[in-house]
């Protein structure tokens, strides 16, 4: 539609008024020899092309334009698609990297106590506000009790095992134990 509109807007051209106008007239005469003088002002017939021909011509031109630009756009689209893919891969990799770094800031610590006679063993520590609820060790068939806790690296912690809900003991497997100031002791661990 734009093409036909342009054709209609060609308007009239006055001969001799401007070298550009003269060049345009010469071009039109060359292009449309059967319609010499058409579209020129000064006695000539106004420039008027057959509308259907103009539209057909415009459509053909636009089809070629689309075809051409489609061919030209294809590599660009591929680049864009690949760039998007690369961005996605990079973003996912970064998320993974962040995850690894975060996980490297903590370490899974397995607390193990051999207490075959115990009915329950809990872990009470400064990292759980000395509240053993939720930190029950699981008993294995050989009488060992264990729990794995993720802890932040780079610092030390104090802890006790609580046997049967009432007996607080230090970890017998480590030498790091300190007087707690309340008449008992706590084990310490550095990560």
């Amino acid at each position, binding site marked *: 539609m734009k093409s036909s509109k342009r054709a209609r807007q060609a308007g009239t051209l006055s001969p001799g008024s401007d070298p550009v106008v003269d060049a345009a007239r010469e071009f039109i005469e060359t292009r449309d020899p059967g319609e010499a003088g058409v579209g020129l002002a000064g006695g000539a017939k106004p420039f008027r092309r057959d509308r259907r021909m103009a539209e057909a011509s415009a459509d053909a031109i636009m089809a070629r334009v689309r075809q051409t630009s489609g061919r030209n756009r294809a590599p660009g689209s591929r680049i864009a698609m690949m760039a998007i893919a690369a961005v996605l891969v990079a973003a996912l990799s*970064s998320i993974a990297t962040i995850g690894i770094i975060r996980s490297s800031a903590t370490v899974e610590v397995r607390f193990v106590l051999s207490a075959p006679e115990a009915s329950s063993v809990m872990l009470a520590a400064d990292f759980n506000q000395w509240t053993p609820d939720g930190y029950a060790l699981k008993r294995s068939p050989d009488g060992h009790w264990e729990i794995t806790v993720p802890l932040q690296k780079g610092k030390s912690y104090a802890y006790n095992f609580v046997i049967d809900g009432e007996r607080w003991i230090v970890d017998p497997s480590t*030498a790091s134990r300190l*007087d707690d100031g309340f*008449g008992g002791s706590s084990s310490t661990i550095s990560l």
Partner: protein
Amino acid sequence: MAHHHSARLAAIFWGMALLLALSVPAQAQPSGGSGTGNDKPVGSGGGDKGGYSAPAGRGGTDMAASGSAAADFEVWLSSSREGQRLTSVRERLIAIATPAIEAGVPFQVFSARIREAVAKGVAPDIIVQALEVDAGRWMWLAGVLRGADWPPARSAPDLYLSAASALRNGLMQQAVSDVVTFARSSGAPAEKAGAALTTAAAIVTVYRNGDSLPGILGNAAVLMIHSRLNVGQYAAVADMANRARAAGIDAGRFIAAMEASLGRGGTLADLERSLFG
């Protein structure tokens, strides 16, 4: 094809550039993370350890902040399960805590110790006595740290607790002061200083009944913080002290071995060789 190759190369280049751009800030994240001890629902970072906002070491200089912290402690004492079990000694606890908090001691150290004591079923009077002694140690540490912007508020309670524990277990004040001063001047994490104090205290405990001089063992803390060991290796040093004592190696020789190995940038293996050949 050349055009496609260059397009792929460009895509790979930009992808890698983006990867690097995204990765660098991620790596710059502090390993300390959020300050939580673990990822369990009942973590150490929750509760009152993370809520302290006034920097430690500015004891007495920000009365409004410390006054607010003292009020926070009273509120905690009134509202917490632990506090409600200590109503008989509530006023005594407040009388102990208030001057300490005003001197710059984070109030969370009081609540942390009270939690531990109540969980262990300690009698209220014993808790008061223990906290009175602890408060004196904490106030001394607040004096050492006065005027400094170290440690960060988030790390301060742990450092205070570690220092008091180390002093309680026989580490000399000079050793604690040396470790804290070194860590502060070198920008070392407060958690590392706390771990060094805890490990040194454990070594002192190993040799407590021996004929060693506490002053000599105090060097262990300084050697730990100066060494190239990471905190995760500290416990191995305490275990080695235990083995060394069992093998008849006295405290003086143990410290000499630490100086000859860890004190010169050596590793745990070097320390082991120094001790056991």
